[in-house]
């Protein structure tokens, strides 16, 4: 599997898009730390990049990569390799390239200017979100019949997770504001990896105190060891589940 992933990685590096992405992240994070005197303010701006841009890039890049490496997949299929192995190698190759882009592009500036609790939380959330959305993109790409549908589907998923979901949550909170919703919001946050990442980071910042009673509950939960475990576990689930569904579909697909 490592052998195959090596060639996937090589192919990705040759296209240079990933290098541009690394550079983009690096310049943006560096300039944010330079512009803001207070590093925690810079972290807040960076947080939005991580939560909005990172999933989008992961989704679009992975989907395009999948369709571009169709020939490679076809070639591999005529070799004595199982389909599971082929798809997982693709996943490993894409994830490694996107993760290293993030850790070099955003990780280095964060470690330089804000190597604290919040910084590490941001890096963890960024890494996890990259993996989650790579996995979701594979699911979309395997299910969709052609490139346009695949990318469209991926973008729709991004809209859902980044924008629509929050609206829905707000709607629920407003309509049921007479009831105690603390537990429910906890569950709702687990259903969206972006929200989970946001809460995970925010609670490590000072502004966590502004979130009122729910914030206190969150702080109580996510601040504890079991809360961290919960976050890691749910994120893992968000990586494994779509990937597993993608592999299952891929095994039955006509290519």
């Amino acid at each position, binding site marked *: 599997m490592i*052998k195959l992933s090596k*060639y996937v990685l090589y192919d990705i590096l040759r296209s240079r898009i990933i290098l541009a992405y690394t550079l983009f992240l690096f310049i943006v994070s560096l300039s944010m730390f330079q512009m803001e005197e207070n590093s925690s303010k810079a972290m807040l701006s960076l947080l939005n990049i991580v939560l909005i841009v990172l999933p989008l890039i992961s989704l679009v890049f992975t989907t395009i990569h999948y369709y571009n490496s169709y020939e490679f997949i076809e070639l591999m299929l005529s070799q004595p390799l199982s389909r599971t192995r082929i798809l997982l190698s693709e996943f490993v190759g894409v994830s490694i390239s996107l993760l290293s882009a993030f850790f070099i592009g955003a990780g280095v500036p964060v470690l330089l200017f804000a190597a604290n609790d919040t910084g590490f939380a941001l890096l963890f959330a960024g890494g996890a979100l990259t993996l989650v959305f790579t996995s979701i993109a594979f699911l979309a790409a395997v299910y969709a019949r052609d490139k346009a549908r695949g990318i469209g589907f991926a973008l729709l998923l991004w809209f859902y997770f980044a924008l629509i979901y929050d609206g829905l949550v707000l709607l629920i909170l407003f309509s049921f504001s007479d009831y105690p919703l603390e537990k429910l919001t906890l569950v709702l946050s687990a259903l969206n990896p972006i929200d989970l990442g946001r809460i995970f980071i925010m609670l490590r910042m000072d502004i966590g105190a502004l979130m009122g009673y729910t914030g206190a509950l969150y702080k109580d939960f996510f601040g504890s060891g079991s809360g961290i475990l919960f976050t890691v576990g749910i994120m893992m689930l968000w990586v494994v589940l779509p990937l597993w569904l993608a592999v299952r579909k891929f095994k039955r697909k*006509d290519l």
Partner: protein
Amino acid sequence: MIRIEHINKRFKKLQALEDINAEFHKGQVISLIGPNGSGKTTLIKLILGMVRPDTGKILVDDKLIDNDPVYRQKIGYMPQIGRYPDNMKIGQLFKMLMQIRNKEEVSLDKALIEQFELEKIFEKPMRTLSGGTRQKVSAAIAFLFDPPILILDEPTAGLDPLASEILKEKIITEKEKSKLILITSHILSDLDDLTSHIMYMQEGKMLFLKEIEALQEETGEVRLGKAIARIMKGEKLTSEWIDKMLQKKSDERII
């Protein structure tokens, strides 16, 4: 070596294959012949496991091909249109395939690489290659691991006369090593000196699978092209002709 039992395959509205039954043995050169869209390539892709059958079984060396990809080690496949990763160089492609199959340098059959003079262009990326050169690469890959089963989909289409002759020579050499070779081609004159059996397909149905001598005898034509042309003239004629032939055979037996 290959046994196909009651294979059915449907693509949406199109019945691509209908109840195909066949058995291929060592030392045979089977020509798959039929009009465009008669299901030849689909059948080949089924044997390679790229397309999954709706119902039916395929056995290679008495083993079901469903889940175990190892059987593909025995198969060398030359696709109709060889599509390869754009950024990969020819040399890398060969190296990668060798790594995947874990074969020793010594056991490789590099005859075609040498005869097509591919080593000279080992540094060229795949995207810069012409269609003919791609075909040469595909052919070299199919024969590289000295597999006991060769599946060649339109092997001579797009090759210049010299290369086509080299490939035909190579197929004959392999035939003498008593391998099983499956060829599809529309250039029937190419098949004349190669083939031992003809499998004729039309609209997803296998009309017959018989030795070339028998076919020559029945049609009274020595050249394969003319013999097949007689069959291809209209569907009605075909079925009638086959009925007649079968009738004749059984009549003979009675006498």
